[in-house]
């Protein structure tokens, strides 16, 4: 069991529109990961859908933060709040 890979768990809650990362766990395969996630992360009726993905399959950005993200810093017009939205537009 020490060799069981690590899995990341994503849960969509009842009201949620998308799956959110809630944590990780160990399991021998995908089915066990789903069942473990059910027991570890949905005990209080948190979810209606679970995704699991082996942590090894997640690729994270490793670039130096400054170069990677800073160019977006001074582009305030990219934020939706920069514009006046008509009342009819929902979910922004």
């Amino acid at each position, binding site marked *: 069991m020490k060799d069981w890979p690590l899995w990341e768990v994503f849960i969509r809650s009842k009201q949620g529109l998308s799956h959110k990362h809630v944590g990780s766990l160990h*399991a021998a395969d995908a089915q066990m990961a789903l*069942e473990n996630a059910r*027991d570890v992360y949905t005990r209080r009726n948190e979810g209606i859908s679970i995704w699991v993905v082996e942590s090894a399959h997640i690729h994270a950005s490793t670039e130096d933060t400054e170069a990677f993200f800073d160019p977006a810093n001074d582009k305030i017009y990219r934020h939706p709040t920069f514009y006046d939205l008509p009342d009819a537009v929902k979910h922004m």
Partner: protein
Amino acid sequence: MHFQYLLQLGDNALILSQRLGEWCGHGPVLEQDIAMTNIALDLLGQARMLLTHAGELEGKGRSEDTLAYFRDAHQFHNALLVEYPNTDWAYTIARQFFFDAFAFHNYQALLQSRDERLAAIAEKSLKETTYHLRYSSEWMVRLGDGTETSHQKMQAAVDALWMFTGELTTPSEADRLMAEAGIAPDLSKIKPLWEAKVNAILEEATLTKPDNNWMQSGGKEGRHTEYLGYMLAEMQHLQRTYPGNEW
């Protein structure tokens, strides 16, 4: 007999819950530790409903707690299977699977009970037990059809526990009378359903069905293995020492 029949059901849930609770903090991995505790708490919830119902039906003022903590081993009516020690993970899974396969079909049949309160308890419990059966079936197959070691351990557990399985579907006096009254299912109709499920999972798990058909009995009548006394000593210790204590 109605009272005793409810004790059979309630004690099955209570005693198995206590056994599973012994895994708390000792599970093979954190994830299964939590799974065991979840199932234990489901069963404890079922035991509470069943024992409360039993106590009120008896009408002598005994609450769920009185029934759980102030009866001795010979006054418990659970099947012998559920008091069997955890031993190892394979025993725990085999015990759970044999019990779940029974509980699932039993609760399903109890939906038709003339005891309406019992039918309502069965409806709530069935949802939980459906998952328990799925969980224990999945582990039977995973270990039975796993590595050579896991197969051997699973087969050893199945062989050792087999003689305690017959009692589940062998009617006691209470089972018989309650079936006649339309309160309990006819166990001769549950037996083939249990066997079909067990045969299917054993086959999928590449496990051999034991050919020993000699079965232990007595639990439902209050004749228990030595294991129950030790277990009750631990379970009841606090209430026996400080009756009515709360925390």
